């Protein structure tokens, strides 16, 4: 018995070490970029192997502070995320509720009408032409309306409401003389806060992270979301820094800006992540119950 226990302990230690190595692998890129962003770009370029900041300086953030398109992008992304998510939640919760009511005439047909679009998607060009023909090309609407409802979020909301709000409540409200709207606003909505949190986070992170619709629908740089500005800086290497920056050399300043913007865009997410991750997991679980 003692030897089995010892072997168990040994096994636990081995897999713990493996999992710690995996965790390091998941986090290392972020730790590295964080440290590099507080280092002197001269030192990073000379030897990119580091874990802690080398020759600590805030020079990079001083450049970013004056980099106006980053901040325009930041503000725009906050706008798209807040307004977009508000639209998403309004559309999704109202429709999901209506689709749980058995007395809804044509319920199956409407569900079929929505499910069908999960399998038949017209694709990039017809979607682009539609946005153009609606006259919302190069406006903020182009990032809000085409993604107003996701079928997956609609269906997880519907299954949540079906499971968590008993029909008896509806019957009781009816006896009390409450109409559908009263019931929806004063009974269903207050009982749906946790599913609203789940889908709000899915929709919200989708808005914050998306860049492709902005790329094809927007021309005006003042409307660009942060991710599109990041694409210019990180992928296309189009970084606008003044030659008279604190770092002297332009190519070093460009390198530094890249580390700094990654930190700035990932930081809000990493800060709120520990508090909200359980909602994401819950969403996946609800989704898998009724795939």
């Amino acid at each position, binding site marked *: 018995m003692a030897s089995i226990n010892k072997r168990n302990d040994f096994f636990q230690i081995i897999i713990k070490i493996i*999992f710690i190595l995996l965790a390091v692998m*998941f986090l290392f890129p972020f730790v590295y*970029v964080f440290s590099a962003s507080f280092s002197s770009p001269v030192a990073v370029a000379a030897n990119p192997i580091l874990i802690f900041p080398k020759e600590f300086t805030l020079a990079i953030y001083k450049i970013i502070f004056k980099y106006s398109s980053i901040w325009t992008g930041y503000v725009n992304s906050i706008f798209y995320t807040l307004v977009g998510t508000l639209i998403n939640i309004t559309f999704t919760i109202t429709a999901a509720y209506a689709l749980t009511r058995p007395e809804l005439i044509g319920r199956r047909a409407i569900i079929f009408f929505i499910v069908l679009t999960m399998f038949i998607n017209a*694709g990039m060009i017809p979607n682009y032409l539609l946005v153009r023909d609606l006259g919302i090309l190069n406006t903020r609407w182009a990032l809000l309306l085409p993604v107003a409802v996701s079928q997956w979020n609609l269906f997880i909301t519907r299954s949540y409401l079906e499971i968590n709000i008993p029909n008896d409540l509806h019957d009781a409200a009816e006896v009390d003389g409450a109409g559908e709207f009263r019931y929806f606003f004063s009974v269903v909505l207050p009982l749906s806060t946790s599913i609203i949190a789940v889908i709000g986070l899915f929709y919200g992170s989708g808005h914050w992270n998306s860049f492709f619709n902005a790329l094809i629908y927007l021309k005006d740089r003042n409307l660009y979301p942060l991710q599109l500005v*990041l694409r210019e800086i990180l992928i296309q290497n189009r970084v606008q820094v003044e030659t008279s920056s604190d770092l002297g050399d332009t190519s070093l300043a460009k390198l530094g800006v890249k580390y700094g913007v990654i930190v700035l865009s*990932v930081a809000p997410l990493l800060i709120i992540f520990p508090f909200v991750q359980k909602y994401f997991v819950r969403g996946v679980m609800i989704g898998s119950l009724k795939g």
Partner: protein
Amino acid sequence: MAYEMRKKSLMNSSSRRIIKKNIALYLLLMPTILYFLIFRYVPIYGLQIAFKEYNPFIGYKDSPWVGFKHFQSFFNSIYFFRLVRNTFLLSFYSILFGFPIPIIFALFLNELKSEKFRSVIQSISYVPHFISTVIICGLIVNFLSPSTGFVNAVIKALTGNTIDFLRKPEWFRTIYVGSGIWQQMGWNSIIYYASIRAIDPFLYEAADIDGANRWQKMIRISLPSILPTIITLLLLNLGNIMNVGFEKVFLLYTPNTYQTADIISTYVYRSGLVDQQYSFATAVGLFNSIINLLLLVIFNSVSKKASGESLW
């Protein structure tokens, strides 16, 4: 007679109530129904331009029909084979290497005794999933840079040489698949881990009494118990094999790596939105969607037979 009338008026009032209720429900549904009509069905109507010579000044309806001309010119184009091969291989390798890893990850998570340690590891493993594609690709470009990248600094310290990974076609698939595994393994393990936890503990206790060791329990109990989940997800993945995540390819590829990196959807983007050959690009995209749909239907019916699980 009086009874008949009472019954009629009762029916009237109840059907009136149902109609009134339905009006309310349809008002709640209205925004979403309109959304699907306008933003999902109108583009499907617009697909007809794949069979027409679309002229923006004439519109969808009056542009002349050309039949399968655009499809034919795609099938005959020198890029056809390359695009289909690249699209297929990126997915195929992603499934081959990326599919088993979350399962193994979940099986070993289940072996951890300390609940606290396990939940910390799980939370950390979800982080990459929530990072935007632009940032992921930015990190890849940054780490692999031949002059200032961390990876090349290590390679240089060891061998004295550097590798310009993102300009070499032979590296593209490895980079794409490897970064995908790093980003998704924790997140994709959620569902397997949940099904392992749902296994009746009695099965493990019985195995303990029979003297089974942990490997035997893992292989003989855990794995078979989650097999239906594995099969369903595998078939779903196979059904989506020609449906490659477009954004990552778009951000990472360059003309240097088109040979292995250019896929059908990136080609649709270039020919449609950059070169403005709307009809041709719509036809290429439609070809891809039809293949996707066929594969999904085939693998879904296989899934239904194999495990009783299906999408519809």
